[in-house]
């Protein structure tokens, strides 16, 4: 057994960054307020003190230029971890991300690589409103050349960061702000690595597979306990990485349970939920007893109101209800006219 200790999601990430910065002098951090201030969510606390201003660089509020500089640094021997303060501001770095970082290895035919990590925060629950609460990872997933991870536990957060920093490619990691305080066991040193592109069965079950993304995994696990009281055992699969997506682990689970629900805190339209659902259709159609269903964020901007905001993303209760609906209500319609 690997040595573990209990850590929060936040400090698991800080530990990953610190370990990799100690391991490799090329690793450095760039972002707004991450240095002296220690991050607006205390998500880089202590790093400035240990590593100094040269390796924990406070950038001006110039996302496109500063991120582009991280790309240039990555092309020339460094391993930057660039922080976009809110995931909503991914829109500002899109050109350098999509047209430069993601394509350099391909366009240069391997002459240059871009070993770079983008970290950002997302999700509802902080009453921050329509421009600070989106979960835009599906945008990044549309771009060949990128890798995208959405860790749901402290252990995965640490392990995925360590792998991402060592990867030769641009990797985006989306952190749900509501997870920062979540506690869990985290391994130390090399044993903590979690490979990119590998899903995990977070909870075993026989009746239905819930594939949940990011914080939705935590909601699904709670829903599983409630459903268990009613004799329903759901399996919860956490893809951990959306790009590349580990379709095989997901499909294996569905082939056992014969039903699938995809739970995603991102927008439903053209979203990650649709991609996962269709991947299940293609890999496990013959095993399905019911259509694959999605439970995603509402297709609306995230309102700031304390009564409206909680309605946007799926939660434990909505997962419970949807699972029940899928188990009883959603069977294939009887086909009366099968003959030609």
């Amino acid at each position, binding site marked *: 057994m690997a040595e573990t200790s209990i850590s929060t999601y936040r400090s698991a990430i800080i530990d990953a960054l610190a370990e990799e910065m100690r391991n490799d002098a*090329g690793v*450095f951090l760039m972002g707004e307020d991450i240095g002296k201030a220690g991050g607006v969510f205390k998500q880089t606390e202590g790093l400035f003190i240990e590593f100094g201003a*040269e390796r924990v*660089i406070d*950038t*001006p509020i*110039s996302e*496109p*230029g*500063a*991120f*582009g*500089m*991280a*790309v*240039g*640094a*990555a*092309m*020339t*021997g*460094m391993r930057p971890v660039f922080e976009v303060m809110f995931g909503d501001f991914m829109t500002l770095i899109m*050109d*350098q991300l999509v*047209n*430069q970082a993601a394509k*350099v*290895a*391909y*366009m*240069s*035919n*391997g*002459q*240059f*690589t*871009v*070993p770079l990590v983008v970290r950002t925060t997302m999700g509802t629950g902080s009453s921050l409103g329509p421009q600070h609460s989106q979960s835009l990872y599906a945008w990044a997933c549309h771009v*060949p*050349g990128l*890798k995208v991870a959405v860790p749901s536990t402290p252990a995965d957060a640490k392990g995925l960061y360590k792998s991402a920093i060592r990867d*030769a*490619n641009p990797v985006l990691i989306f952190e749900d702000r509501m997870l920062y305080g979540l506690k869990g066991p985290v391994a130390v040193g090399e044993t903590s690595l979690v490979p990119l592109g590998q899903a995990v069965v977070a909870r075993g079950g026989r009746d239905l597979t819930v594939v949940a993304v990011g914080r939705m995994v935590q909601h699904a696990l709670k829903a599983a306990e409630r459903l268990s009281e009613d004799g329903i055992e759901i399996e919860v699969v956490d893809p951990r990485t959306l790009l590349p997506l580990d379709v095989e682990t997901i499909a294996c689970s569905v082939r056992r349970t014969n039903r699938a629900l995809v739970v995603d805190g991102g927008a439903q339209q053209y979203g990650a939920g649709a991609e996962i659902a269709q991947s299940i259709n293609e890999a496990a159609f013959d095993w399905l007893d019911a259509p694959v269903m999605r439970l995603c964020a509402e297709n609306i901007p995230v309102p700031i109101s304390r009564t409206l905001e909680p309605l946007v993303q799926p939660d434990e209760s909505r997962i419970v209800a949807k699972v029940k609906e899928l188990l009883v209500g959603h069977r294939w319609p009887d086909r009366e006219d099968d003959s030609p």
Partner: protein
Amino acid sequence: MITSSAPPADEHDHLRRKFLVETYRMMLLIRYFEEQVRSLSQGGLVPGLVHLCAGQEATNAGTCMHLRKDDYIASHHRGHGHCLAKGARPHLLMAEILGRQTGYCGGRSGSMHIFDRENGNLGTNGIVGGGIPLAAGAALSAKARGTEQIAVAYFGDGALNQGLVPECMNMAAIWSLPVVFVCENNGFGEFTATEDVTAGQSLLSRGQVYDIPSVEVDGMDVLAVSAAFVEARDRARRGGGPSFLLCNTYRFGGHHAGDRQDYKSEEDARLWRDRDPIPKLAMHLKAAEIASPAVLQDIEASVEEEIQAAVQFAKASPAPESLDLRVQLHG
């Protein structure tokens, strides 16, 4: 405004003379290269658009040739001249422009996305202004690694209106990065004249507001470009931070090889043509007895031969195999 044509102080006279002849050779190489690209393009052999830099050789050679092999450049859509002056081999460059497997990027990237790692070329760029942060980031990396490498960001006057310019100038200044911002001001962005889309009394002030040493240069005079660039290069190399060079130049052709250029005034075009940087340098070389007419003729002949060989090589090169489609999606 500094438009000195004084020789770089740190170069020995003999070396300087030799270097000037090499500079002439490079400018001619770029011109002949571009002429061939134009005719190949008209012959339908070049996939996509090509943006030729004929007329701008003084800003290409007068900057790039003063760099070390391991210094970085990031160029733009009109970047063949930068690639060549930074050391790219004409036949591999030509093959890439024709989309052949032997080209710098295996034929997948073409004229607008040429990378040459060996020579520190971070790519010509299809996004106007897109290369500016790449060069500034390379300078950040060079500084962090303590290598005394420097980086040059090339961009046109059109790109001067991209937010990336002030953003990167600000960061380069506050972090004192070894980067030279070189604006090749040819008066047009595509088909639109600079003055129609650019506010402000002085383009030079775009560097000055960040306290970046900023110089306006006659971009048709390679000696003037060289002098200003060497000063900027040395400042960057010794830790003195960024510089901004505004090089006034002209593209003899249109925006791309097929552009009919109805929007240009014939009078203007003639005036600029009279200032062609290549004969201008040839006259200087002869007048200062640095190279005789016979030597210059030999150079012309050998450049012509080199470019013909490059064209033959590129034309004879195979197209990429379908197996290459997915290679290097990830690094």
